């Protein structure tokens, strides 16, 4: 899990919001759908790949 996941999730929310906006045209919506679907795939991959790792702090 990285900060990137958070950004991807934010981007995905934006995509959905834009698609649900009645002012967004069909062409743009199709492009958004492709972008959103790719983001979802990436998010799901990251969620599935998450792994517990325990380390001990090292002195600065």
């Amino acid at each position, binding site marked *: *899990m*990285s*900060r990137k*996941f*958070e950004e991807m*999730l934010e981007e*995905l*929310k934006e*995509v*959905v919001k834009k*698609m*649900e906006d009645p002012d*967004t*045209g*069909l062409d743009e*919506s*199709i492009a*958004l*759908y492709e972008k*959103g*679907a790719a983001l*979802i795939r990436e*998010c*799901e991959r990251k*969620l599935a790949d*998450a*792994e*517990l*790792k*325990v*380390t*001990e*702090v090292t*002195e*600065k």
Partner: protein
Amino acid sequence: MDQDPAVPWQEPAPVVLGVAEISGIISDALDDERLQEIWIRGEITSYKHHHSGHRYFSLSEQVSGRNYAIKCIMWQSRAQGLDFEPRDGLVVIALGSVQVYEARGDLGFYVQEMLPAGAGEKHLLVEKWKKELAAEGLFAEERKRPLPAFPARVGVVTARTGAVLQDILNVIGRRFPIEIVLSPTAVQGDLAHVEIARAVRILDGQVEVIIVARGGGSFDDLFPFNHPEVVRAIACCCTPVVSAVGHEVDHVLADLAADRRAPTPSAAAELVVPDRAEVAREVGGSLDRMRNALEKKVQAAGLLIEDLKSRLQPRRIGRRINDSREEVSEIEEDLNRAILAKIERGRGELGRLVALLEGRSPATILSRGYCIAEKDGRVVRAAGDLRTGDRVRLRMSGGRADTRIEKVYHE
């Protein structure tokens, strides 16, 4: 009062006060901040637990071989709050005020709170620290920062062994496994506060959120988490901190300095990472929402096309042409009607004219017995037109006759 001049001078009578009056003076005298809401340390003697629930005892102290004591009263309503059973010989600290019970003239220390001396003094120390640290602004609400939504690395300050670390690992492993960086420390003991503060500082900046945790324990066990050194380390930490010390009911000053307080270490773990299944559901839900949105747009576009198509159909154009045609033919008919009417009118007029003409035609005149004289093909209109010997044709009803003029008479 007027003095009778006859009576010789006497000493004035001594002032005599009422009991109520002197009680009032005593009360006033006791109304001194040195005697109100104060803590007294002393050994309990002559302890009596009255059946009404009130406690009567003395607090005593020996100084330089001399005994000092003050009578104490703790009403049942206050005694309910005691978390130990007082007994003779116990050294305590008590909060209260010196007052006089006017109905009996008893002067005593009316106790509101009482604690065993050792632990009690630690409580007081915590209260003092709390005031000082609050005055420094370390507990201010505006210092609190939000926790990151999806931390990649979580720092944990706690003992290397024990249930607390295991609980945190279990919860994070179950909800959203990520990297956990342990900063091990002693969590109790005389120097624990130094270690805890150091463990926090080492982690700062190396992780995205820090959990400072300890399992349940006595007030003394949790005491290091009240220490200003720990409080300052947490307050000055650039990384957001979640405190989880003891159980739900335990409160330490570290909680006040942390960005969030969790009732238990497990609860802290739940606070710092989201539930992966929930996030996955949200992500999956996004797909549904996108599909719905797209479907709606496709449907709307389809409807629009249908509408345009129907408006462009030849059938509709044909209908429009027919409409125009009908209009034209109607106009045509109107025109025809108007022309016919005109013709009709003309015909009538013509008939009248014909009749009129017929009345004037030569034939009609001839039939009445007149003749028309013609000379050289022209009608003879006057006698002057004729000469003797002229050949004249006479037209009359039923034929003509050629004649010669014998004589012309002018009139």
